[in-house]
């Protein structure tokens, strides 16, 4: 596609449709990515015209569900950025382990790979029994997938390498059972995960946490929305709790920055003020 069929104007029309009809607010999302995603689903589904595409999004709830799933980025992996997970394992979680109870919020959990990664580390640190992971996403369909705890067997080599690089010492395959092209992770790992919908744009704080992870979500938001979401995290984080973001994300520009101290080398901040 040399010239995208979807124009900037089309994007704005769809965003206001979706906000009015369904209450999903994407107006604070970065446009370049959004426009590419919309153009992509438009082409994939071989829409005949913009009018037809718009009509379907507005009037077919099943198609709207697909639309949301396709315009949001749901790419994720287990133990992505192993050094990050090593810091969780060696520094952050042992500190939180001194508390009677650990509440973790994984915001924008997509299909759940990171939730299971954290669960594995907690189990190995012998902390899983007193932890609770709230894994949320705005997208009900990715949460359904996440709750199945099934992933592609073809990914396991990569995940196992990541796991070892992150400081894991067990045989990674001991955590799942393979079945044809899929693997299913042990039910024990998901017992302490609560999958639930939550929209960072419109929903409020729902608990107090000692650790909030939100990696590679803020990159899709404009600065105003980033401010708003960081405030929400700040509100939801206990004193001395930790906030973890993606490799290229930061809180430095935000109004809460002076209350936080960064852990050297990682995108993890501790709330100190």
């Amino acid at each position, binding site marked *: 596609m040399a010239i995208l069929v979807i124009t900037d104007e089309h994007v704005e029309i769809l965003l206001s449709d979706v906000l009015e009809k369904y209450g999903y607010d994407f107006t604070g999302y970065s446009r370049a990515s959004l426009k590419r995603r919309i153009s992509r689903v438009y082409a994939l589904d071989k829409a005949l015209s913009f009018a037809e595409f718009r009509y379907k999004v507005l009037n077919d709830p099943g198609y709207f569900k697909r639309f949301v799933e396709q315009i949001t*980025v749901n790419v994720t992996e287990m133990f992505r950025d192993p050094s990050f997970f090593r810091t969780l394992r060696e520094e952050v979680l042992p500190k939180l382990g001194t508390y009677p109870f650990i509440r973790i919020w994984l915001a924008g959990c997509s299909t759940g790979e990171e939730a299971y990664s954290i669960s594995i580390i907690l189990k190995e640190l012998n902390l899983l029994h007193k932890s609770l992971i709230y894994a949320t996403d705005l997208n009900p369909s990715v949460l359904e997938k996440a709750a199945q705890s099934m992933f592609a067997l073809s990914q396991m080599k990569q995940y196992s390498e990541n796991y070892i690089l992150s400081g894991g010492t067990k045989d990674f395959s001991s955590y799942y059972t393979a079945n044809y092209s899929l693997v299913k992770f042990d039910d024990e790992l998901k017992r302490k995960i609560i999958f639930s919908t939550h929209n960072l744009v419109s929903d409020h704080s729902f608990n107090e946490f000692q650790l909030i992870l939100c990696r590679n979500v803020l990159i899709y938001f404009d*600065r105003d929305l980033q401010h708003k979401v960081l405030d929400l995290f700040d509100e939801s984080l206990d004193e001395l709790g930790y906030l973890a973001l993606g490799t290229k994300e930061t809180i430095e520009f935000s109004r809460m920055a002076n209350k936080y101290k960064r852990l050297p080398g990682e995108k993890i901040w501790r709330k100190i003020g």
Partner: protein
Amino acid sequence: MKQCKAFIIGGSAGSLDVLLKVLPKVNVEISFPIIIVVHRKHGTDSLLPSLLSTRTSLHVKEVDEKEKIKAGTIYIAPSDYHLLIEQDETFSLDYSEKINYSRPAIDATFQTAAEVYQRKLVCLLLSGSNSDGVNGLKSVKAWGGTVLIQDPDSAQVPYMPEQAKLNVEIDRTLGVEDIAEFINLLL
């Protein structure tokens, strides 16, 4: 000479060598940013900007998300993210599926930049072994921008510029020694 608001270089296998030869000769007074998108292995992050900054007095930095794009700066796309250009001339990053087995994909940067800078965009595709960048160059062309390739004869891996040549109407084919001079003549 056409006015240039952004000069974007895409490259893959065999392109680092070209950059190391070209950058020292680029005039430090250029009035536009140079944005570099090269395929590299994830996890080798900070090496490329520091390597390239030893070859030029221009400010070289890895892109931060939502950063305002400034003239006279050389920006490097971070590994493992697509680099997109927004209408307000800021960068954004995207962790969606790989394109042409690549993240960053040259196509994604070329395509989004094409819509922003339109006729004032100049894009150069260097040596490489896959066809990333070709669709991007088509967009650049369609929006009136200028399309350049490294002369495939001078490329360590000619496949990428060759594919561009086969599929896009190229404005200029440049030998390695001509690239800096071309950049320096842009306004």
